[in-house]
């Protein structure tokens, strides 16, 4: 069970152990590849990235963020707000491990898409 091993024995830092990522987790990680964001900005980015197919509410969003922080894929950033209105907000950014996991999941999905295209439309892949 590679997933469990990597998540509990986190010091191994093996991104493959976190795969496949739940769809909401992957969207949040991708949203944060553009830099640190607060919760609402992440939610909006996920809406846009998924073209509305993944619509997270606040409860799902913060549950997901908490889980990703616990796993060491994200970290909270303090004192990085752009304006006084944003000072109250909690900002998040990818950790090094989070970046590697996001990259590994991207590669996995890309391979899968290549196979699907190749099988569905031979000669066009």
């Amino acid at each position, binding site marked *: 069970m590679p997933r469990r091993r990597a998540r509990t024995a986190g010091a191994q830092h093996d991104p493959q152990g976190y795969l496949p990522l739940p769809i909401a987790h992957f969207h949040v990680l991708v949203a944060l590849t553009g830099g640190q964001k607060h919760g*609402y900005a992440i939610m909006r980015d996920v809406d846009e990235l998924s073209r509305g197919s993944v*619509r997270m509410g606040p*409860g799902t969003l913060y549950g997901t963020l908490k889980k990703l922080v616990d796993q*060491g894929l994200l970290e909270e950033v303090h004192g990085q707000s752009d304006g006084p209105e944003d000072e109250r907000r909690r900002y998040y950014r990818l950790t090094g491990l989070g970046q590697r996991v996001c990259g590994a999941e991207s590669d996995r999905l890309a391979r899968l898409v290549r196979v699907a295209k190749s099988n569905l439309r031979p000669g066009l892949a």
Partner: protein
Amino acid sequence: MQTEQRVYRKLLVLYPKAFRQEFAADLAQTFSDLVHDDGAPSAWRRIIVDFAVSVPRSRLEAIMKNQRSNVVLNTLIVTLFVAWLGTLALGAVVGLPLLAVAVVLGVTQRSRLARSLQPERPASLRRSRLLTAAIFGLIALGTIASWIYHINHYKHLGDTTVMVHNLIGLPTLVAAACYLVAGLRTPRSTPSPVA
């Protein structure tokens, strides 16, 4: 504060207390942003679906977090299993319910759902495994001590005595070794995030 804000804040009571304490302000802020950008009807449609999904999940997570620790459950499972082996060694079949309970507990404890709902706590996981190893080790040592006592005090050992000692001693010794290795291989804490 607008009416919908007050209603939303009241509804947050549906979430577990720990989650509420940590994220209530963020949840309210996000809801406020949603109402501001999308309008109240659209925001509420999203919120209703969100509650339906996230409230049961967070409640389940809270239940799993508060349940008795893995060590206690694992010890209970092993004790029931050993008790069943004991009744078997004595030729009794009345121990089958013990095995049934041990299996049910084991499957429940080790199920994918249970593991996915348990919080990630490598530090406590390490302690838990080492403690389990210690418990198994003590049982194994006790069995070995009992074995030595029997050899020194009795000329002939009955089949039942031999079987009981083997059935208890060997599995617990192996389990102790496995948990010890697993515990030592578990990191002391979560990896420190690298920015």
